[in-house]
């Protein structure tokens, strides 16, 4: 390469690096990356719920195991599954959208230092990460809807209608934010070498015990598990979606899941921005 004796740079075009503009540019970057990875994200988001509804709403009923969840005349199992699988997709996608990239950025690539040099306060960078991941969680939840509504055996179709749109929107949006904030918190606290612990100790129990496959009230007979489940954020998202999508199935009162989702989002966002700032600024 031959370099000129003096590299006289033309001044850049006039720029207005306001905080909202920088924030918008960061979101545009996320959108560009999401667009590039859409196919792989799409497949990743859909495989697990599709497999579940395929086995529980199609294969088992065909084998004669598709009893009505609430006994004869009760709701189909696919009806119970719809809010749970949408909720689980929101939570998992939002968490994974922030945890794994963050571990790379903080530990291996160290590219977080570069993003931290953008002209915004570091806590706002954390908030941006939460919003970007929540967006992915939301998309993940929306993608699952058609799959869970359409895949089922004859007579096993889910009975779903939106009872309350504002509650549906609040639960989906705030649930995504809650999961993303939790993901950011875990991503800043977890040792990347122990990432398998995340699956074994956090994500798997959260999904299996997140009232995805049964309503929370069904745990009345296992009181200790019912109480323990209250520490699982997925329970509130599943129950919130159940209240508005399948209101005929018993569910938590709105004040309970809304308080947990909105309050939890505020609490986790506060904690995650603190741990994130501590990791980025040394």
């Amino acid at each position, binding site marked *: 390469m031959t370099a000129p004796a003096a590299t006289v740079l033309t001044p850049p075009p006039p720029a207005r690096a306001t905080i909202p503009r920088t924030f918008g540019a960061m979101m545009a970057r996320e959108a*560009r990356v999401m667009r590039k990875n859409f196919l792989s994200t799409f497949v990743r988001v859909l495989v697990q719920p599709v497999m579940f509804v395929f086995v529980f709403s199609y294969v088992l009923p065909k084998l004669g195991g598709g009893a009505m969840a609430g006994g004869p005349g009760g709701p189909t199992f696919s009806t119970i599954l719809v809010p749970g699988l949408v909720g689980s997709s929101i939570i998992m996608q939002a968490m994974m959208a922030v945890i794994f990239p963050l571990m790379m950025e903080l530990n291996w690539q160290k590219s977080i230092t570069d993003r931290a040099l953008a002209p915004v306060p570091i806590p706002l960078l954390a908030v941006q990460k939460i919003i970007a991941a929540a967006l992915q969680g939301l998309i993940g939840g929306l993608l699952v809807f058609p799959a869970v509504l359409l895949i089922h055996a004859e007579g096993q179709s889910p009975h779903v209608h939106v009872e309350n749109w504002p509650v549906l929107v609040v639960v989906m949006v705030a649930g995504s934010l809650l999961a993303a904030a939790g993901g950011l918190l875990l991503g800043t606290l977890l040792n990347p070498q122990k990432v398998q612990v995340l699956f074994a100790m956090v994500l798997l129990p959260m999904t299996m015990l997140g009232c995805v496959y049964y309503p929370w009230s069904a745990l009345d007979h296992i009181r200790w598990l019912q109480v323990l489940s209250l520490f699982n954020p997925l329970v509130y998202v599943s129950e919130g979606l159940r209240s508005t999508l399948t209101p005929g199935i018993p569910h938590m009162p709105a004040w309970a899941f809304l308080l947990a989702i909105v309050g939890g989002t505020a609490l986790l966002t506060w904690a995650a921005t603190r741990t994130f700032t501590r990791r980025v600024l040394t």
Partner: protein
Amino acid sequence: MSAPPEPAVQTVELTKTYPAAGPRPEVPAVRGIDLDVPRGEFFGLLGPNGAGKSTTIGMLTTLVVPTGGTARVTGLDVVKDAVEIKRRIGVVSQNNTLDSDLTAAENLEFRGRFFGLGARDARRRADELMELFGLTEHRKGNPFEMSGGQAKRVMICRALMHGPEVLFLDEPTAGLDPQTRTNLWEVLRGLQAGGQTILLTTHYMEEAEALCDRVAVVDHGKILAAGTVDELKNAAGADTVITVAYDAPAPDQIHKLADRDGISKVEVNDGQVRVFATEPDGILGELVAIGAAAGVGVTDATQLRPSLETVFLTLTGREYRE
């Protein structure tokens, strides 16, 4: 009459101590550094690994929080005015911190947009810089599939996207092969000739000598000396350092060399002798002869001509460890 422009970088007693963590005691990484870098200067922080250079640059670029002293960049305080400082500086990190989800050109484009450029302006600016730095054919390349030199040039372009007032480079040529390093030097010289203020850290003596207007020699978190390379050499005696290792304790006659004109210091450490001399001719032969007369053989001998390496040796009494 307008006031003179604020210095690009000014620090007073800048200190960073990392707190104890678990079994690790607290680490005083930077211990009271004073710097004054005027605009337009190419300034180097030179020191071995672990000397505190990267922590210093971290504080100046707002990513490391000082525990003592003050630091101002373009007249702004690094703690209170961090966001505004980030608008005014460009930083090239030691590691490849390019965004692996974006192409080289997109890395530049989004950097421009983070700093307030519109999408079209940012793309145009990215194209200009990539052409200037010979990267046009790599614009769609993945930054992690490029050679070290190419990735570093992309990082420099990225840091220049918004026209920073001060460019910080942390070990820009670490890990690069000599040819690529020389090429990158040309790039940096070109930038400086174009008026860019640059603060660079390096552990390569020859890099500091080749590029910097002024250099601060840093070790164990302190500045040992600062000035132009010539000033440093003069201040440290402009000595040639002759080191001889004997296969037995050095003979006593060696100490008499210290009285001789042209020899400023003689250090004896068991079988190792180090002579600091302004007139080095013949000394090495004499050291061998003294040893032979006392029945002691020479196992190793080196002669370092005046350089930053001998400055470091004179200032610290220790050989420079990269």
